[in-house]
């Protein structure tokens, strides 16, 4: 990665490596995600994400995406058709918008990368109609994307992602005292308080692996 923030870029291959790293983390955190979802949902977030990631890996193995748009679309279509549940369409919408905004290009600058993330975030919001504080993946994604945007304007991609990871992790922790207003956890009413949101937890992994793979 180039040291100069203005010229450093991320290639499609790096994005693919990012998703691969994410898939590894999902495997590693399968039980944790499922346990979190058992407490306030239906106990399948880990297996949902794992099923989706495995399906995506098969596609990525067979056909390396040509550009950012192809990367986003390939992942989105597989997630949408393999996951189901709430997380399938939400993460699917994220990657579809990420790719569309990233465009048919082979690499993204920091600002372009942040714009792709923002588009993904907006797609999750418009698909799921949730907002900050509803105890969903958005509680990790919104602050992290904001940190990423600020970060790439002010410094390197590395620093931007470091800030995004911190923001995502804080967002995850912030879900604990919240009462869920969206998703299955909302059925629990006050009993959802005191538990960490599984979707926010998997979203934090998306940032952590991005920092590891795209950030250094």
């Amino acid at each position, binding site marked *: 990665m180039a040291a100069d923030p203005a010229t450093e870029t991320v290639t499609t291959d790096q994005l693919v490596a990012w998703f691969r790293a994410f898939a590894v983390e999902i495997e590693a955190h399968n039980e944790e995600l499922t346990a979190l979802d058992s407490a306030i949902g239906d*106990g399948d977030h880990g*297996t*949902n994400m794992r099923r989706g990631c495995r399906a995506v890996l098969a596609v990525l193995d067979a056909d390396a995406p040509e550009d950012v748009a192809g990367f986003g679309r390939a992942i989105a279509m597989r997630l949408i058709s393999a996951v189901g549940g*709430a997380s399938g*369409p939400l993460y699917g919408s994220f990657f579809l918008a990420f790719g569309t905004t990233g465009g048919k290009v082979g690499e993204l600058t920091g600002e372009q990368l942040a714009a792709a993330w923002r588009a993904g975030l907006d797609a999750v919001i418009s698909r799921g109609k949730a907002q900050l504080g509803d105890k969903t993946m958005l509680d990790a994604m919104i602050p992290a994307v904001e940190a990423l945007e600020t970060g790439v304007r002010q410094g390197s991609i590395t620093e931007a992602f470091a800030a995004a990871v911190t923001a995502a992790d804080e967002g995850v922790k912030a879900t604990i005292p919240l009462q869920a207003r969206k*998703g299955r956890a909302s*059925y629990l*009413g006050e009993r959802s308080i005191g538990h960490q949101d599984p979707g926010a937890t998997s979203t934090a992994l998306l940032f952590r692996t991005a920092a590891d793979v795209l950030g250094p």
Partner: protein
Amino acid sequence: MKKLINDPEDVVSEALAGIALAHPEVTVDADLKLIVRGDAPVSGKVGIVSGGGSGHEPLHGGFVGVGMLDAACAGEMFTSPTPDQMLEATKRVDGGAGVLHIVKNYTGDVLNFEMAADLAKADEIEVEAVVIDDDVAVQDSTFTAGRRGVGATVLAEKICGAAAESGATLTEVADRCRQVNDNARSMGIALTSCTVPAAGKPTFALAEDEMELGIGIHGEPGRERRKLGTAAEVAELLVTPVVDDLDLTSGDRVLAFVNGMGGTPLIELYVVYNEVAKLLSGRGIVIERNLVGSYITSLEMAGCSVTLLKLDDELTTLWDAPVNTSGLRWGV
């Protein structure tokens, strides 16, 4: 985990294989996990598609057939199916009169069916979707995911199936579905948790003297944990909020549906039905029709739900109309 299964990953597909072998009158698409009426598409008839996570059998696959669903999409265990399944089901049952999607109100089901409807419309199939949200255990609010779809789904599928069979238009069938949803409410209780095969252990733990009140059909914990009650107490806890929410008063006619969650035997459901009937008759509410059995389940969870649907003559006629599915059959 004590289950009659092989690999937890294969439960859904192997059960579908079993259904295909047991019920040659329906077509099972093993890849897409679809169960489709053998004679689909029925020309000129509104097609009805439903679906959802597996683990609720006989819902939905057991309700595919004349007088009920044209197709059911099976998701992974407790996980909504995906838009491509729903799109394919929609295509297969479109007899030219459009297709109704009956969607239980869960974020996953709603989002995936939304995507499927968008795709179907792009293919120029007329689609209407009605979201079922009858569970009074969950507070209703525009700021939340709203109420879950539970027992009323069975009633809506039966009644819409009859309406479609009688030649109603897509708008009419969808209106009928909304009528059922507006006039039906449910409440459920669990005595034990279920175990999702992939998780391998119970979703929640209940002490020997505890029950969960206001549970859904996915092993999600309920709104409140209570001391285990008698059937009479349980019936009271289930019936009262349903009656109140529906504003039922003396002289109203209802369909009373006592549903088992999968691990509760029929004999207990009749004990509960007896209590439900006593409570309703005490309020002057007339049970005009009833359904007692395990129709929308949550794997092997022990417990039950009560659904009441306020009837009028038309709904009663549609309920009585012939239905020929493995899960519900009469008049044929």
